[in-house]
């Protein structure tokens, strides 16, 4: 009896020691790997300390848009044409009441489009012009993070923030997440309010969120987005790959001073404005 108890206590003690000691032991043995990592990090930090760290080289295609508001100020009908082309291409309903409104590309005054920029003593021409507003197809889209069903997502091949209407459950989290108000909810059946049907595109149903899709279906056919096509030849809207240094859009961006909507949020919008 006595002997057995002694044996039990020995085993229990050894087990407890091993249990307590194991984490420390693991930490000790893996410390070499940690040290190596730490060294590398220190080296990196030193490099960055000299100036702004270079942004990672962009990969793949990222479609973007430059809207030249100087040209739209000159010819306001360009924007009307662009909106009409989009409305037809995507079977967008036209409601009279603003609550039900469905907007893919729409007009808004400077102060609403750029609430962060000062609109104090704004140039008269800018103050009077309606700005073209659409989904920014952010590189870091907050709506995509908010969507519980992955109905909205970033297309890998071209950076378009797209929607799969089949999956949308109408929770409107994306609408709350989008800082640009680029998303609309179908409060009622849109069908009776669609003026003309494009038979190659579907309509939506009640209870679904929708927004600009950068005309993914037209790009597949080698066409330009409907709004870009509507302004063809004027250069009012330039569309292209932001990651391609030789693209037309990059030539414009390299030459002109452009602003993005509320860039400080870190959403990295792909739509640029020349004011």
């Amino acid at each position, binding site marked *: 009896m006595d002997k057995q108890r002694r044996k039990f206590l020995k085993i229990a003690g050894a087990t407890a020691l091993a249990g307590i000691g194991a984490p420390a032991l693991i930490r000790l043995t893996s410390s070499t790997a940690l040290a190596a990592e730490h060294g590398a990090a220190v080296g990196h930090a030193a490099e960055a300390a000299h100036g702004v760290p270079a942004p990672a080289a962009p990969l793949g295609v990222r479609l973007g848009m430059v809207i030249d508001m100087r040209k739209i100020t000159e010819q306001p009908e360009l924007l009307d044409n662009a909106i009409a082309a989009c409305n037809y291409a995507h079977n967008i309903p036209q409601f009279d009441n603003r609550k039900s409104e469905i907007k893919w590309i729409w007009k808004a005054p400077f102060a609403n489009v750029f609430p962060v920029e000062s609109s104090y003593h704004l140039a008269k021409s800018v103050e009077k012009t309606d700005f073209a507003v659409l989904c920014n197809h952010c590189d870091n889209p907050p709506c995509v993070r908010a969507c519980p069903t992955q109905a909205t997502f970033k297309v*890998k091949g071209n950076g378009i923030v*797209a929607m799969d209407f089949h999956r949308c459950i109408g929770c409107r989290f994306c609408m709350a997440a989008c800082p640009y108000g680029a998303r609309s909810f179908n409060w009622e059946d849109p069908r009776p309010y669609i003026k003309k*049907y494009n038979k190659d595109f579907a*309509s939506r149903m009640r209870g679904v969120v929708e927004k600009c899709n950068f005309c993914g279906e037209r790009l597949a056919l080698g066409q330009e987005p409907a709004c870009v096509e509507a302004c063809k030849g004027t250069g009012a809207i330039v569309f292209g790959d932001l990651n391609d240094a030789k693209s037309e859009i990059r030539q414009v961006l390299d030459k002109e001073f452009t602003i993005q909507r509320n860039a400080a949020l870190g959403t990295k919008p792909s739509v640029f404005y020349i004011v």
Partner: protein
Amino acid sequence: MYNKGTIIPGLIIFVLFVTFPIWFNGLKAGTLPKPELPPGGEKKCVMPVEYMRANHMQLLNEWRDNVLRDDNRTVVTVEGKPYRKGLQMACMNCHSNKEKFCDNCHAYTAVKPYCWDCHLTPKEAASKEVTH
């Protein structure tokens, strides 16, 4: 057996009642649906007929994911004729009458697909067509 007199007739009545839909229709499943063949005279679908009959819904889902999610909009070519992946863009091009083609079987099998909540039937699309 106790209460033989009530249990056995009761069972018979129960079985007759449960099988009512079968014997009431004369042990026939009703007239089989005959979906209309493409009025344009197309003979070959994007997949064999047997496959389409059983799996068209899976194919449509596959196409949907290809087009929307994977940006894979490769055109399907059948007998030299290109078809873009899509219910409105491919299927309804040949099967241009939804009422006589889709609804025929769907009504018979009592399935209610929600395709047409958003997608336009050729008839609906033609009702508000561009005139210019």
